[in-house]
């Protein structure tokens, strides 16, 4: 069995982008949003299980989440999902070798792989921002009703 190298960077390695640029921070944010969504999802499964008590039990459960703080929390989860999902599509495309350009000889001015992937990163961030804006507008109308 191949010996696994020790990860000496630990949590600091997760949080610091170092010289790797914006994509490295997207990686960190991808993990943070992933953990947040997982935590919410576990609570969501338990809360939505109250449907088994019938409409009254559901209404009573939902009444306890009427406070603005819960609406804000829900919107934060929406933002996290928009980022995690759209960035995840970029990661899958890159994993499958799509939209990263063809390999070539290193000639000056150097065009390294991260730079070739950057337009894809910018495009997915714009898509995520548009989705977040739509979700925010919907929340505004819901609160103002």
């Amino acid at each position, binding site marked *: 069995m191949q010996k696994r190298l020790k990860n000496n960077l630990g*949590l600091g390695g997760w949080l610091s982008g170092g010289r790797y640029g914006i994509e490295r921070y997207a990686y960190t944010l991808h993990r943070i949003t992933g953990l947040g969504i997982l935590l919410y999802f576990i609570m969501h499964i338990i809360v939505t299980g109250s449907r088994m008590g019938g409409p009254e039990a559901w209404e009573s459960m939902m009444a306890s989440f009427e406070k603005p703080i819960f609406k804000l929390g829900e919107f934060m989860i929406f933002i996290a999902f928009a980022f995690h999902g759209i960035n995840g599509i970029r990661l899958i495309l890159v*994993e499958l070798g799509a939209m990263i350009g063809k390999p070539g000889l290193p000639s000056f001015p150097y065009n390294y792989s991260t730079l070739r992937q950057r337009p894809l990163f910018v495009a997915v961030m714009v898509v995520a921002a548009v989705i977040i804006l739509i979700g925010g507008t919907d929340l505004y109308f819901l609160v103002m009703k």
Partner: protein
Amino acid sequence: MRESKLWFWHITAAIAVVVLLGMHMGIMHVGEILSFVGIGAGDAVKSANVFHRSQQAFFMATYILLLGAALFHGFYGLRSMLFELSLSSGLEKAVSGICAVAGIGLFLYGSYAAIYVFRMKEVLP
């Protein structure tokens, strides 16, 4: 199961989650905007809307599919993050076991709830 197979299912589950959760988020968070153009039923968490959706076979099936895909993707992701911290082999086994038990337990509970509500015909609006 070999790690490469688990990784393949992690990515496959991610695609399923993006599609199904995207649909779920669309219903839950864009309902107000959609109701302006005559689509969507407004407040998606009202009990009439919740039970109306839950008692359709399509939604029941997609809830269970989303549950399985999201739990696998989430817990495998968590396990991968923890493994990167250079755990001992005993701790790795413990983390894998806890993630598997938590994932399967939540899947069983969530699926049971989805099927239970689907069969509650008397609360159809």
